[in-house]
Every structure is written in C-alpha cells, then in structure tokens.
C-alpha cells in the first residue's frame, strides 16, 4: 500500500513538472523584480509666440515649442521620439518643422530642419531613420546626420501580434518565433490591452499592458499601465509598475526600448520628460 502511494505521488509530481514546461508555458512563479524609475531626461518647453512663428525655427534651439491649445483643442508640440544606439535622443519639434537631437542627459546636440511637422520617429537597425509627416502620414527617410535619403519602399516595422484571451490572460508573439503567455493575477483588476515593445538580442521580450479596476459606474476612464520583461524562455523577469499617464501633449510615440532600457515620452506645461527605466 505504501509503495502504491509512492508511485502515485511520483506520477502526480511528474505530471505537475511536465505540464509547466509544455507549449512554452511559464514555469512555477519566480520572484519578479520591480524596477524603479532610473532617471528622467528633461527638456524645456517654450510656448509658441505668434509674431515669432516665421522666425521661431532659429529661436531657443535647445528648447521645444508647444501651444497650450484651448477649449476643444489639445496642446500641440513634441509627440514623437526615438533613442539611437549611442543613447542620443531624437524628438519631433513639429511647430518648428524640425527634429531636435539631445544626448542621453538631455544636452542639446543639434536640430534637423526637415521642412514639415513630424509626429513619429523610428530608428531602424539599418541606420535609416523614418520620420512620419503629421499632416499627411507620409514617411520620410533620413540618415543619422539628418540628411534626406530615398524613402521608396521604406515601411515601419510592425509590432509583434498580441491578443487578449480573458480578464487575466493574453499572448504576445516573440520576434523570431514563439509566444509569450501573459498572466495578470491582481485581485479586482483586469487586463485591458497588450502591446509588444520588441524582443532584444538576448531574446528578452518587452510588453506594455494596460489594466483597470473599473469600466462601468466609475466616473471616467481610469486605468494603469505596466511594462514587463519576459526572458527568452517566457518567464516574467521584471516589471515597471504604474507608468505615469499624466500626459500634457499626448504622445504618438510613447514607449521605446533600447538595450534593455525602457524610455517613455511625456510632458507637462514646462518640459518634455523622457522617463527611463533600466530593466537590465
């Protein structure tokens, strides 16, 4: 009888162990590292002064221009960005028809006069930088020095597919194959959306997720945003909890990941802020 119990126990244990490894499912829960904000890059904003519209491109080059909007009009200004391999940051300055470059600490390095208002920047691994014209959606290509390059055939890389499966689960495709299974088990909260931020050279995948406690009855749309890092074998490694959502100028490019570091574009009435979380 005792021997039978031992055999049954072994079978149960084996079943538990193998079930966790099947189909890329995450294994037993491990300690998830909460990543605090590492730093913020701050760039001063300057309100657009109407008499200076025509001359504004040469004024205060280390600042970025904005308009405060009005009743029924949102503030307008820098809403697109990307981070280059060397840590330099490119930010759109649509009211000057230009793109400004800052170093990793926020020191102004120069501006590209591109001749149109841009709302999105994507630095490709090939070295090309794709810039989207805000008013037309047309893509323009530049090199790392800001010189125009032929943009024929240039396409923006599409994020890997994500899917919500239920209130607590979803999947995100890994670039290079396979699927990450996302589980969100917080009492009283539900998973709203999933967005792949990319897979790095080590196979780690970065995922932005929106969650909420409400959806009806509460007065307005209320939610939180998290960023998670999953290892190459699909395990949840670390997490940024409650990403700030207090946008002043609503970003088109909100999040970028470079070399395991997450960057978020946000702003208030005084400055553009690039929030940085080092998830390495």
């Amino acid at each position, binding site marked *: 009888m005792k021997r039978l119990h031992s055999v049954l126990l072994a079978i149960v244990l084996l079943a538990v162990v193998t079930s966790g490894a099947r189909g890329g499912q995450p294994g037993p829960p491990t300690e998830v590292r909460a990543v605090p904000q590492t730093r913020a890059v701050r760039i001063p904003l300057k309100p657009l002064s109407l008499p200076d*519209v025509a001359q504004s491109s040469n004024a205060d080059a280390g600042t970025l221009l904005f308009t405060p909007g009005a009743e*029924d*009009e949102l503030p307008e200004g820098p809403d697109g960005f990307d981070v280059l391999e060397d840590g330099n940051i490119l930010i759109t300055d649509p009211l000057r028809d230009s793109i400004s470059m800052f170093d990793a600490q926020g020191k102004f390095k120069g501006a590209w006069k591109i001749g149109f208002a841009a709302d999105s920047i994507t630095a490709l691994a090939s070295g090309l930088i794709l810039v989207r014209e805000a008013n037309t959606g047309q893509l323009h290509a530049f090199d790392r020095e800001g010189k125009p390059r032929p943009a024929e055939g240039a396409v923006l890389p599409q994020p890997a597919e994500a899917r919500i499966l239920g209130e607590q689960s979803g999947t995100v495709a890994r670039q290079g194959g396979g699927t990450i299974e996302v589980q969100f088990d917080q009492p009283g909260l*539900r998973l709203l959306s999933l967005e792949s931020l990319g897979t790095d050279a080590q196979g780690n995948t970065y995922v932005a997720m929106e969650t909420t406690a409400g*959806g*009806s009855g509460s007065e307005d749309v*209320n*939610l939180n945003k998290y960023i998670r890092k999953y290892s190459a074998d699909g395990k949840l490694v670390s997490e940024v909890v409650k990403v700030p959502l207090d946008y002043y100028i609503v970003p088109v490019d*909100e999040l970028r990941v470079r070399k395991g570091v997450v960057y978020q574009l946000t702003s208030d009435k005084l400055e553009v802020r690039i929030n940085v979380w080092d998830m390495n």
Partner: protein
Amino acid sequence: MLSYLLPLIWLTSGFYMEPQTSAIARLPLTTRAEMIARAHKLANHTWVCGAANLKASCSKRYVSDWKAGQHITGIPYAWGGIDGLEEFDNKLAKGLAAGGHSRYGVLACTAGIDCSGFVTYCWGMGLKNHAYSTSNLRQIAGKPKYNWFTDMKPGDVLNKAGSHVVMFTGYNPDGTINVCEASGSAARVICHKTTWSRYKGYIPLQYKAIDE
C-alpha cells in the same frame, strides 16, 4: 381622490414629456452605420491645397499647415469649424484658407472641422451652427451604463469636457481601440488605432437619438 390621481395618470400616460425629452425627440435619428460612414467619408476625403487656400483673408497672423499643390486625405482641422464635405469643397473653391488652430482664433475665412464639430456632424446634426462643444455635449449624449472597456459600440464617443472628443469605431484583439477624430496635431480628420491610456479621464457618451 381623483384630483390627486389625475396628475399621476397624466404623467404616466405618455402625454407628458419633460422639456429635455422633447428636445431629444427633435434630434435627428441616425444609425450607427451612418455615423461611421460619415466619419470615414471625412477621414478619406481627398483634396488639393491651392495657393489661395494657404492664406486667411481675415487674419494676418494665420500660418497654413499645408503647401500649395499638396494632395491631402482628410478634411482639415479648423478650430470652431463644422464643415461637411460639400461645404468644405465649396469654401476651398472660393479660396478660403484650409484649416486653422485656436492660436489664430475662430476665423470665418477658413474651412474645416474641429473635434466636437466632427462628432456632431457624424451624429447627423445640422451644419448651420456649432451648437455643441465638449462642454455641453452631454445635452445630446448620455453616459452609458455598460462597461466601456468591453461594450462600447461604434459611434459612441470618448469626451473630456473643455478638452477633446473622439469617436470610437471598434476594439482590436490586443485590447486597443480604433477611433476617428478631428486632430489638431495631425491637422485633419484621421482614423487610427490607439491605446486606452491616451483617454484616461475621458467619459464615454452615447448619442441620444440612435436608430438602433
């Protein structure tokens, strides 16, 4: 006894209508499919900016978003504007300026549509005047009782009084949403995929005269 009951009978008989209810009864009925069709027509309307459309005759401060000869898809954003397709094309042909922002004021010499004008146009409201803004949109649109993260329907809107309003057109499998809007930063009407976090603090509203 009857004198006490008469008002109650009258109130419940259907003959009585609150002023608000009668105002709602005067709203144009429209289907959700019509709302979305109007939104897509404004977003997909193609036009060419002529040299005359770069200048606003009634404002010296005006600076155009466009270049002469530029081919554009989407009715231009004009703060305070509420032009439909025909009105916009007519104004463009007459040499009015294409679009404008609040920094130039509400200009009679521009053509285009703003965020609340866009939503009310899609709901089938008249173009005679810009009667509704994000601040009084609740007079013609109520807050739905459903869960807006799962049960919004095309044609409902996300509104932030005094700020901005967009029209919801659908959910995506990844939980994000699709919206159409008259966007100041895009300078025109656009339809695009977006995330919920851009609408934190907004209130979902449903037009009160939907022909379901």
